[in-house]
């Protein structure tokens, strides 16, 4: 059996926009996001599910797009890093907080960390530092030693809290 020529049509909602895509059945979701949709903010660090750089939100939950076939995403709602900031360029509070805290250096891992953080704060708006460490332990960063990223999550908590009370 040769799969090389096999294709499949799927429907996905990416950053709020619903698209139909014809993809080879063997292709990974990460490849389709990067190559077919041109959303190159999703990065590939290890392509075997350990580093977490390719993390996206799949129906609101963090998922490794390098371990999922694109076919498996049929009918789901996907958020990538490009979907976080407002259309006018205003950063999402998590992005703003990472900026304020000098969260990242080379930032190759940043999208994965920030999308994991968005999911964490949706589930637990005021996590303890220990909880933050645990939740982010599936994402690797080689530059920062993590402290500034964890500080960034704490800053995001404060920022979202202030924004909430302003409203």
């Amino acid at each position, binding site marked *: 059996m040769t799969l*090389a020529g096999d294709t499949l049509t799927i429907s996905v909602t990416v950053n709020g926009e619903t698209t139909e895509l014809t993809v*080879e059945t*063997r*292709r990974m979701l990460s490849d389709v996001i*990067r*190559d077919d949709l041109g*959303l*190159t*903010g*999703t*990065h*590939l*660090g*290890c*392509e*075997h599910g*350990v*580093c977490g*750089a390719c993390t996206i939100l799949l129906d609101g939950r963090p998922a490794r797009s390098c371990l999922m076939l694109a076919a498996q995403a049929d009918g789901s709602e996907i958020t*990538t*890093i*490009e979907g*976080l*900031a407002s259309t006018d*360029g205003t*950063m999402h509070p998590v*992005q703003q907080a*990472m*900026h*304020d805290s*000098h*969260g*990242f*250096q*080379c*930032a*190759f*891992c*940043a*999208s994965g960390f*920030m999308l994991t953080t968005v999911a964490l704060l949706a589930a637990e708006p005021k996590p303890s530092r220990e909880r*933050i*460490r*645990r939740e*982010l*332990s*599936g*994402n*690797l*960063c*080689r*530059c*920062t*030693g*993590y*402290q*500034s*990223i*964890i500080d960034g999550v704490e800053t995001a908590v404060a920022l979202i809290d202030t924004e909430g009370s302003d409203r």
Partner: protein
Amino acid sequence: MSADHQTSGLGFVGQSVKRVEDQRLLTGNGRYVADINPPGVLHAAFVRSPFPHATIDRINVSAARRAPGVVAVMTAAEINAITNPFPPFLMLDGMYTPLFWALSDDRVRHIGDPVALVLAESRHLAEDAAELVEVDYTALEPVASIADALRPTSRQVWPKADGNLLYDSSTEYGDVDAVFAAADRVITERLSCQRQSNQPMETRGTVIEVDPRTGHLTVHSATQTSHVLRWVLAALTEKRSMGSSIAAFARNKDRRTAFIAGARSFMATNKDSLGNQDNSGARSQFRKDRSFPIHMQRIGLGLLAKDDYPTVLAQDIGGGFGAKGSVHREDVALAAAAIALGRSVKWIEDRVENLTDGGHAREEDLTVSIAVDHDGTMRGLKVDLIVDQGAYPGFPVGAGFTTQIMQVMFPGSYRFEAFGMRSRVVATNKGKYVAYRGPWANETWARERMVDIVARALRMSPVEVRLRNMIGESEMPTHMITGPTIDETMSVRKTLERALQVVDLDAFERERAEAAEQGRHLGIGFACYHEAAPGPPDYMDSVNAGSDALTAEVARATIEADGSVVVYTSQMPHGQSHETTYSQVAADELGVSIDDVKVVWGDTRRTPFSLIGTGGSRGGPLGGGAIKRSSREVRRMLIEEAARMLEASVDDIEIVGGNIHVAGVPSRGLTFAEVAGAVTATDPSAHPFDATVTYNGKGDGGWSCATHVCFVDIDLDTGKVAIPRYVVVEDCGPIINPAIVDGQVRGGVAQGIGAVLYESSIYDESANLQATTYMDYLIPTTMEIPDIEIHHIETLSPGENDFRGVGEGGMIGAPAAITNAIEDALAGRGARVTTQYLPPTTILELAGVIRPD
């Protein structure tokens, strides 16, 4: 963004200004090499050796060539026919550097050695076809360790070497035998460090874009050294006879003129240093390899004849830690393929390749002896170092040059009356050796480990031994026994004294005793070092006479017709936030906001030449120093013109917030655009203000210093080492951006923690690599790296430029502090830590909980 960057009136340097890089990098708008897809690009996959050591008997590519989407399958027969070998660079007396080619032709020398290149319409199809390439190998006896390499009967990795010994050099400073005979005791230990890997989160990658009209190559690459990549690709893809090169050069007058001017300027800039060079390295290379001068001449003449060098365009890079400072064989193979096919090509390495052939480092054995008196005075030091370089040296810098730095820095901040060192480099069947963040760092690990071993032998505290032997301010200026000047910037003692104020040793001892009652084992470890970043003016000549010429950094600053400030650096940022820090430095020099400064990097058409790029903690001291001086020069030009326009003396002009005015009369000021416009009005072709400055740190310089203190809490049920507290007291002089400096320190410490507790590029006894995924090569996570407590001392240097480097220091100090803390925790059980790598089983063995098998 501008809200972040209000002028404080105090200047930007010294403030934790938020990063200007973030707007693009945090929103997914970075442009990393994998994001670049020229029209019609072909995707590459390399066929790599599954054997550590074997001859290649036959390669059959016919099935691969017929596979769907495949455009070409190229082996050494095609690639090496149109390329030159990597020649020896930095040759040292007593060293042999093998010549090697982009693809292996008759023999493979490590798991992952590239033997063929497949180019197809997609990466999937290229990888499918790569599996169809049939290679017949005959396995040879592998050389799997330093011990194997030194065995006279072992199979030679490089036929022209002396066995597998590539370098053997001994140096003595002072009368080593006399000092060792006179001292009360000699304490000796054999220490060994495991093979490690840099592991940036972004793997290697290169996209070569071919202009279909002109054939010009634009090379997008994850490189730390864009200009070196450009020159190496130009040099190694120009294969032609010497006669035709000479004829072409003779015909091309522009090229001749440019070459002569360039050579004159280089000689003039580096006159003193070049005069010191000796040729003993080239002579020892020639004794082993008579062919190398022919290749060198052919390459050199080819460069003169070549009329179109590639452009290297490197933008956002996902970390490097030294690994991307080498030019890799794959880059040359890709460039050759792009030229041969006239098509753009793209290669993005996968993680398995990166762990295998993306660069290894630090596998070193060190036998260290210290001659010491009973009162703890260390008098003599002897070191026998052996580096396992694997099969291929990194290019242009292999292990030999690193041993020279290790030698100069080994005595550290202690007074020794005599020091002797033997350095050897061996070849084995392992992945190539590259620089990894503080490539010489095992001098600090071994020395600081030994200080603790000496202290324990003398029943003294490790802190007491350090303080007794460490050079203090009252003795300055003086010299390290290896040559370099020690001035007040060698502030290691100050960092140690501050560390002792920060950590309460008495409180720790009470805590240790309480923990012991609960069966927990606490320990504390110290490590002290100073690093040449950039080092005193005589530093590079102590390492290798004449190599000063390598270290100059060039920067250009301009004020454009619209008044904007643009600075051009030859640094190659890959996480260190150069764009932010250089904006800070230039903005302060010019009296503008950092939002008014644009930093240009990575584009060889626009940035000044550098032989290094980013590495060696140069970004602050040399890169920053060059930016500061070029900005200052352009300010001088601007003020001169403004003074003329304002009919005032240049001495009376000041610039505040972009307003150029006579001091005290800001209301009658001029903007940058007005002054620049006045120049372009009279001569529209003029580039209003433009200054290029070469800066090598001479006369400024100085040392970057730190003391690290690590606390450990060891669980002897599991062998897990927890680090409840980690303190760094560092002195890199005046800090440009504290948040960025702290980030560099923490990142380095995190890699040091990984090196001691988690990371090993381990090979078995047959030279098979055992760690080829992130399930085997363990990068520490948020659960393993604690918050790092950082304290700063900002010692000023006597020179004008005070910035000192901080990129590597975290990793230089950490392995020693951690291993010292572990031995301290287990000292009651008789533990002696002699390896840098201490995974849980080793911890349990050291503690006597389990027996080594």
